[in-house]
């Protein structure tokens, strides 16, 4: 358990401080540094609520097609609209297993990836 202070700024950034107790762990894929920041940030949660627009928003599928990287596929996939787009992380073991299988030709890569 850790007690940390944090400055809180509202939309027009006036500040205050919070101290909070935090338990971290679970199955997060974040690294140590990020977890440290999460400990610090937990006190910001209440400020964050309502600051970020809580309105109902959607992201069109086209955004994903336009943003995805195509380079794992062995051929040009311009215009491809896959049903699912995988999300990878370079230092995460399961992702590396997928990369290895793809590079060895044992796994079919998606036309696009994140």
């Amino acid at each position, binding site marked *: 358990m850790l007690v940390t202070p944090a400055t809180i700024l509202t939309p027009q950034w006036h500040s205050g401080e919070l101290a909070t107790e935090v338990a971290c762990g679970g199955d997060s*894929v974040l690294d140590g*540094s990020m977890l440290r920041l999460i400990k*610090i940030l*937990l006190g910001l949660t209440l400020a964050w609520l309502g600051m970020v627009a809580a309105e109902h928003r959607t992201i069109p599928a086209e955004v*994903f097609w336009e943003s995805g*990287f195509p*380079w794992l596929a062995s051929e040009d996939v311009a215009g491809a609209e896959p049903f699912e787009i995988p*999300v990878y992380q*370079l230092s995460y073991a399961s992702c590396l297993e997928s990369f290895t299988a793809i590079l060895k030709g044992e796994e079919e890569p998606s036309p696009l990836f*994140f």
Partner: protein
Amino acid sequence: MNTAKLPDREIAHALIATVLAQSEGTEQRRVFRFLLGAFMASLELYLNDPAQWRETCLEAWGEGPVAPTDPRPWAQALNGLHGHNGLLGWLDVYQTPAWLSMAEESRRVLADEDLDEAGRQFRMLMVTEPSLQPNLEEDPVRVHSIQFNPGFAVDAGEWTELVTQMEEGALWLWVENRATDSKLLKQWRAEVESLPDLSSRRGYFLKTFRGVAEWRKKGKWSLLNFLK
């Protein structure tokens, strides 16, 4: 590509910039797969020594139309990776590997109150301006969270306070409104996004906002007033 983990960021930045510098799709795929294989063959080395990884990428850069000193592929790579992080943050996709389903025409952004604690924190880290985030390796004890409205006017003292907080490191998010949508602000943000690395972007932010803070001695003014 999820670059929530800090060591991944430099690795991914050099990797994607090198790929984007290639002249056409076939070469981009070849270089990407080559560098990915090289990275996996010496994973620990590169994660602990990003400078070594950058060297490896520069060796693979080749004699294409774009020199390694050209800021464009570096800026484009940074923008692409931050774009990915932003989308993953808004969609609460923080486990990897993950699959983004395209079964529906659009994906709903969950409200913050619908997220669990880890999800809210993850979103904050993923959607805020990376160049202004604090140095996490230094174990910061204070982190400023700033929702910035470029049309909101404040006085010199408040501007100075804001600059101090930006210098200390902040989770910076633009308020989305008409001011953010203005041509002047879009132009300014485009200038930031044309810079090749987080360090130069941070410098641009600070230089501008220091200028704003020193602009006038009396009254109140907004960033938009300054940019005009």
